[in-house]
């Protein structure tokens, strides 16, 4: 099949447009997604937990989101519940979740590493117990800039040494 010059121009226009629009969509996607973002997953997340602005969930360190009286107080509050737990290895269990603008928490995600800081697995039942203990905490301070509160991601680590939790921070 032979293209006429007019058809050729149309074809080039189509190709250039497709390339430019694909690149624009890709760029938009790249600019809107961030490391550690947590989107709602109906299989994992409580549908009653709502964020105030899905498009603007900040990091805890940008808006000073924290537990009332710090991680120290949090540790003290859950220590009795989690202290008896034992694990088969050493490492870290890290929870990342959202503190919404009203100081409620949800959308938990877990990452685990061994003492060499490489991915590993801990007993999922015990991870559930840890998550439950966090969910029972009620004194979260939503992140704020001035008087306006924001949704933000929070990170909480459980350090495990020789099978026992030795620190929470």
């Amino acid at each position, binding site marked *: 099949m032979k293209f006429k010059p007019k058809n050729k121009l149309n074809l080039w226009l189509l190709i*250039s447009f497709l390339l430019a629009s694909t690149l624009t969509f890709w760029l938009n996607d790249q600019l809107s997604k*961030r490391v550690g973002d947590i989107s709602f997953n109906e299989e994992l997340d409580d549908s009653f937990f709502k964020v105030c602005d899905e498009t603007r969930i900040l990091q805890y*360190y940008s808006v000073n989101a924290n537990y009332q009286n710090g991680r120290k107080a949090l540790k003290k509050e859950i220590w009795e519940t989690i202290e008896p737990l034992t694990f088969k290895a050493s490492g870290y269990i890290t929870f990342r979740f959202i503190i919404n603008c009203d100081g409620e928490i949800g959308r938990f995600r877990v990452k685990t590493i061994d003492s060499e800081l490489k991915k590993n697995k801990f007993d999922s039942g015990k991870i559930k117990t840890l998550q439950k203990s966090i969910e029972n905490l009620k004194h979260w301070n939503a992140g704020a800039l001035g008087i306006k509160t924001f949704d933000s991601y929070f990170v909480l680590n459980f350090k495990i040494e020789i099978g026992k939790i030795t620190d929470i921070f």
Partner: protein
Amino acid sequence: MKKFLKVIKLILTVLFFLYTILILSFLFLSPKETRFNFAGNFQGNYISQTVFNVLTFQYPNYSDAFFEQSVPFNKRGEFARGFELLNKAVELDPSLHLGYRGYMKLRFLRDYKNALLDFSRLDSLTPNFEDAPWGEDINFLRGECYFGIKDYSKAITCFKRNIENNTEDWVDLNTFVYLGLCEYELGNYEKAILEYQRALKQSVNTPEAHFGLAKAYLELNNFEKAKEHILKAELNIEYKRKDPYKEFQNELYLSEILQFKRKLTE
């Protein structure tokens, strides 16, 4: 009209191609420093990670790119990926990145023993040079590590070395606070008081020093002094040592001060 339409189509085709070429040439062909700065400014965004992936593919020995790429992962609790990248940076240029890795292990993971290993290795690579990982004196950070593993004597040695190297007036005043804490833990309450007073010499508004003094005086049954300093700790709590990313080992909260105050008045 047909000619006009043809010209418009031609212009659009050129513009669309130019737009694509410009973006792709920036991503793949622009100077590596320009792309590094761009990716650093968009830290945490996927575009930043993509640019770092391109950079490390094109320049596999670019240790700074591996280091900078690791930052958002570690800040956001994805340590496996974060340390995988940081380890690569250390492997490529240990003297440049060991200090930061040790700092991250200390402050973000409270992995005191491995942080100490990194600091020692860094020290051996830079003889006759006082390293300052992430802007803090290496002996201060080592002291914090030993404090974390409750080896208070070794912590004292490190904090004292920090004072010798930086002099009494210029050293980070938290060195004195930690010295006070170590002496307190060892039961040397008079010594603890002297250390906290050195901190107050640098800044009279140091709540951690006032709180430490209140506790030490209480151990020595000096209730008046304990009361005096717990009130000063409360008054100066705004000046406490804090970091938006992490809680310090000795981080002080108003609730602790108030609890101690109640204990004193009971």
